[in-house]
């Protein structure tokens, strides 16, 4: 398979995934018995203690349907949805912060999420793989078993448990970090940056720990398998040093499936990031979604989902496009 075919195939999958993902987002909520308009009208009704007239309700319903793109039959709704999302990146206005456009709200939260996510994923990947390759290369030693045990202990633990444990340990038992973090908004100053870093430490630590365990385990398994490859045996018989074998032979080869696995697990990593944001009140997309969910701000929810799908699919695409640079078997054919 040449590079051109590789890229072409990957792009086709990307477009298909985006299309399918957006379609699922569109149809799933519409298959549920409740719809946002009814839910919202119900909310207003109960607030107004049932004093709304039927005409008022009809008017309200019409304007809400307009707002949510629920007008017309399912097909025209669907086409309208795709048209707005794909061509204009428009999700309508937020309801809770009317008339602020949803896209603007999400885009201002996105840098927070991306910084937290990219940084912690990168650190977890590098640290986890470094520890994993050492554990795998020396898998007969006792120390390697200890390293692997760290992975076993960390890997199955859900994000929310990690987050709470981190809070309990580093903010409650040993109170070095704030129990309820606050993130300043507005113009940046040096002091604010410091405050942000200080408050972001625990959420970042949570994400690093979660990714760390997974990377250790899977890299260790890959490294053990790679170390059995004839080319590593031959390198040893050539008299190549331990370091050369571990880095140039085992790691260079075992890294490739790890990159692919990272691209595949981005969705899960992203989930974790959203959840962590919610638990730490970190002002990213996750928190926006949580707030929107409790106030019934459905446009914001739809927008965040669409954006999440686009972001994760694009990140996966980027990783897969970098892949040929790492694997000469795809690059040179």
């Amino acid at each position, binding site marked *: 398979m040449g590079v051109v075919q590789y890229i072409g195939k990957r792009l086709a999958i990307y477009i298909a995934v985006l299309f399918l993902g957006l379609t699922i987002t569109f149809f799933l909520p519409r298959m549920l018995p409740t719809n946002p308009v009814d839910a919202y009208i119900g909310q207003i009704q109960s607030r107004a203690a049932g004093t709304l007239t039927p005409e008022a309700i009809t008017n309200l319903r019409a304007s809400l349907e307009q707002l949510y793109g629920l007008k017309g039959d399912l097909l025209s709704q669907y086409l309208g949805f795709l048209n707005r999302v794909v061509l204009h990146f428009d999700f309508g206005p937020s309801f809770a912060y009317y008339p602020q456009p949803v896209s603007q709200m999400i885009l201002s939260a996105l840098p927070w999420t991306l910084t937290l996510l990219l940084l912690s994923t990168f650190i977890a990947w590098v640290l986890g793989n470094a520890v994993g390759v050492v554990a795998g290369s020396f898998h007969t030693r006792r120390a390697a078993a200890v390293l692997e045990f760290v992975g076993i202990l960390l890997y199955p633990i859900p994000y929310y448990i990690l987050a709470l444990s981190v809070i309990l340990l580093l903010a409650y038992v040993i109170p070095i970090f704030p129990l309820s973090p606050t993130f300043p908004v507005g113009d940046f100053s040096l002091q604010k940056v410091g405050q942000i870093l200080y408050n972001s430490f625990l959420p970042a630590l949570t994400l690093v720990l979660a990714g760390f365990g997974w990377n250790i385990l899977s890299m260790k398994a890959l490294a053990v398998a790679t170390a059995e490859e*004839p080319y590593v045996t*031959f*390198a040893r*018989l050539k*008299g190549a040093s331990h370091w050369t074998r571990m880095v140039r032979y085992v790691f260079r*080869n075992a890294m490739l499936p790890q990159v692919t696995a990272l691209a595949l697990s981005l969705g899960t990593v992203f989930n974790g990031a959203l959840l962590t944001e919610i638990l730490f009140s970190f002002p990213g997309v996750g928190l926006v979604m949580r707030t929107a969910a409790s106030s019934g701000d459905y446009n914001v929810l739809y927008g965040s989902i669409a954006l999440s799908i686009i972001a994760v699919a694009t990140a996966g695409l980027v990783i897969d496009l970098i892949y040929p640079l790492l694997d*000469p078997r795809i690059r*040179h054919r």
Partner: protein
Amino acid sequence: MIRLKNVVGSYRTSRGSINAVDDVTIDIPDGCILGVAGESGCGKSTLMKLIYGDIVPPMTLSGGSIEYGFTDERGAPVTSANITRQWFNRIAYIPQSSMNSLNPVVRVGSQFLDFPGPDRDKRRVLETVKAYIVKLGLPVETLDAYPHQLSGGMRQRVMIAMATFFQPQLILADEPTTALDVVVQKDILMLLMDVQEEMQNTIVLVSHDMGVHYQTTSRMLIMHAAKAVEYGDSESVFASPLHPYTGMLINSLPTIGDDRAREGIPGRPPSLWQSLEGCRFADRCPLATARCRAEEPAQLDHRPGQFAACHYAGETPEKRGETKWR
């Protein structure tokens, strides 16, 4: 001269210990190509590991000694204890599967550099490598290629270039052409012989193909069930084998133009897990007598430089009824 004295190589497993190479004593003269033949499981690969010094658990050199007859940089004699420091220096190894023995994600050229050589200047070494591979009939571009871009024959040439680059005194080749087609196999074997003739070093070649041995070797070692059963000049081993096993091995496969019926060798080598008495070939041997089953034959020189471990090796072929297996 490389001297193997009563060499025993064992594997330790949860079921106990077995000797995969059992009491092998041979002198390998300098400047020869020694062929090692035998069925799978006879211990030929274990013997190679022992000579190469690749002794890692569960395998151990549990008896005997190996003297290499050459010295290290400081003039001290090389032994099993320090042979690993001579890897790809005084002693080199050509593996079976060139396909998988090169790192798939690193260019061929830089794989010439990741073992410690006498010269630390990588650029200068690379220039020498270039000149050398051209001499071995490979294009210069080979060094910039990745392994998957080379054909099987080219890869095996690269392996030979790597193994012979530092002009080692001893080269071990474990089934170096098994994975190749016959036409390429001939090329590679010829190249190996050329290199050996020029460098006048010693090559130990393991192969299951008696034809390969006949074409390339000057001395032959035949192994059966961890024992050395025959050792001598190839010419003489092929022309008039002393051990019935050697004769059967040579004649186990048909030859074009020869219409005699072939039977192969009946039975299988005995399991090394059980205690073995007498000759280990007795159960498969058409000549075996009660003495063979009771008494283990000693390695006896029946001709100058040719020994066999068979009670009846000294008898004339007619008397031994050689027609039974030829």
